[in-house]
């Protein structure tokens, strides 16, 4: 897990779900914003990024330890953006059923993408479906400590 640029935050992670919590905490430690937006940062972005990494490792890379997950985070100009890319074949996000429907409520899986969409201001995939971009809008602009400035 190495920051590769002094402007944006770039991480390359192994496919290891044990690495997710530390990776998310590392990203969160680099993000600062005004206290009014701390909740959106601490809940919405934290959970959204956790879900994206989780999906990349569990489904995208299918637990394959030889595959990596690339994370790029930029903060500034009123938005915090994270792009998470896996080395899998990709998937169709439109194919994921609504987990809040009564018939899906007791299923163990299937809430990750839903939570990302609920918690972030924008969630988009590339055409192949192996790269997701999460956007959280910040009124204050925010900053990556030691990196990009608002």
């Amino acid at each position, binding site marked *: 897990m190495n920051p590769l640029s002094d402007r944006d935050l770039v991480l390359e992670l192994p496919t290891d779900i044990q*690495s997710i919590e530390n990776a998310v905490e590392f990203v969160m430690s680099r993000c600062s914003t005004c206290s009014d937006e701390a909740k959106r940062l601490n809940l919405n972005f934290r959970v959204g990024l956790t*879900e994206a990494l989780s999906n990349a490792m569990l489904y995208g890379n299918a637990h394959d330890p030889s595959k990596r997950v690339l994370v790029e985070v930029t903060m500034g100009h009123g938005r915090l953006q994270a792009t998470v890319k896996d080395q899998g074949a990709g998937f169709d996000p439109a194919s994921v059923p609504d987990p*809040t429907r009564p018939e899906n409520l*007791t*299923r163990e899986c299937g809430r990750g993408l839903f939570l990302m969409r609920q918690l972030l201001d924008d969630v988009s995939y590339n055409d192949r479906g192996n790269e997701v971009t999460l956007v959280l809008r910040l009124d204050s602009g925010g900053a990556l400590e030691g990196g990009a400035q608002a």
Partner: protein
Amino acid sequence: MSFQVSQNDGVTLIEVEGQLIVGNRQELKQQVLDQLEGGDLKFVIDFANTGYIDSSGLGVLVSLSKKIREQGGELRLASLNEDLRTLFELTKLDTLFRIADSKEKALEGF
């Protein structure tokens, strides 16, 4: 994440310390399943010291609740902070669980 397990008048109380997420959810699941196999039927999981739960953690709670109900028991949750309540409401899982404000209230009348 770590957790403490105690017995309270026939109810198994599990107090979770830390986040319940994809990397550690199996530990909690196995603990509850072991207790269930040992004959415990009434469970309270207390999240007073948990900041957030991801979808995998929520999924484990759903799975455990189903397994416990199949055995004739019940899983109750306690002490969800505002963020956790938000997650349960967004996913409508607040309709699936009995959620108490504190572990004491969850244990009352169980």
